[in-house]
């Protein structure tokens, strides 16, 4: 597939895919990102697929999967945030510094003014708690 063929597919089917996605998302900017993702996926898969017999059906199918992936990612993020909110502040602080700020336990110990071993154990306990809270989600995602 080349750019010209991609343009033809866009001109013929992008409106329908957009209408489908905005119906699900109801957010203009998010729909734009989703539509772009759909055409990027189409371009990536075009070389693998010999011939697409129903281009619009193919695009709508990609659009649907892209939307489901987004919803799933969003739900996962929401649940992780909720689980983090349930941690005691001292464990949440260590997890944040370790995972978001990529700090070593030595650096975390310096920032929080605690021994490095304490930082490591708070991290371990905090992670265990998060893991327990997210276990249902893990099973759900791997169904």
């Amino acid at each position, binding site marked *: *597939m*080349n*750019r010209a063929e*991609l*343009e033809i597919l*866009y001109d013929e089917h*992008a*409106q329908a895919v*957009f*209408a489908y996605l*905005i119906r699900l998302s109801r957010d203009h900017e998010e729909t*734009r990102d989703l*539509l*772009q993702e759909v*055409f*990027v996926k*189409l*371009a*990536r898969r*075009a*070389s*693998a697929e010999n011939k697409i017999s129903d281009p619009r059906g193919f695009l709508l199918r990609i659009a649907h999967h892209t939307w489901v992936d987004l919803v799933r990612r969003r739900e996962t993020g929401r649940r992780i945030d909720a689980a983090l909110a349930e941690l005691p502040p001292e464990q949440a602080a260590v997890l944040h510094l370790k995972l978001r700020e990529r700090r070593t336990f030595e650096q975390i110990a310096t920032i929080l003014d605690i021994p490095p071993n304490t930082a490591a154990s708070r991290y371990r306990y905090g992670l265990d708690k998060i893991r327990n809270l997210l276990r249902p989600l893990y099973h759900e995602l791997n169904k």
Partner: protein
Amino acid sequence: MNPDELERQIANAPEPKLPAKWRNEILDRAAGELKTAPVSAAPPLPEAHDTAIRWIWREIVFPLRHGWSALAAVWLFILGVNFAADSGDDARAQRTASRLSPTELERNYDQRRLLLAELLGDKRSAQQSDEKDPPPPDRPRSEAPL
């Protein structure tokens, strides 16, 4: 409003319009992926419309192309060695044969015939055949009895 009417109204409801300014942005981004499409995909087989051939090419030949090439190389090597050995043996046999005199050749032939008869356990028949076939008289063929 009956169900058919409701369905028709939903189907005919105005769709939100796709913003025209998105077109180039999205196509540029997607076309970028076209250029970086995986080059490891199997190249198309020219003029191969037969699905079986295409399947064999795609699933068996192409993924293991290095293995097949190595196997072909080994076969060619073995074939070459085999030909070289055969031609060597032939030349040697021809050289040996050309050095032997007719009498030696005949004796050699008889020895081999006897050996073959012994190996096959048919010593007697070998002897009989010797008796049946006396050595030809030592005279020109033109003087032989009619």
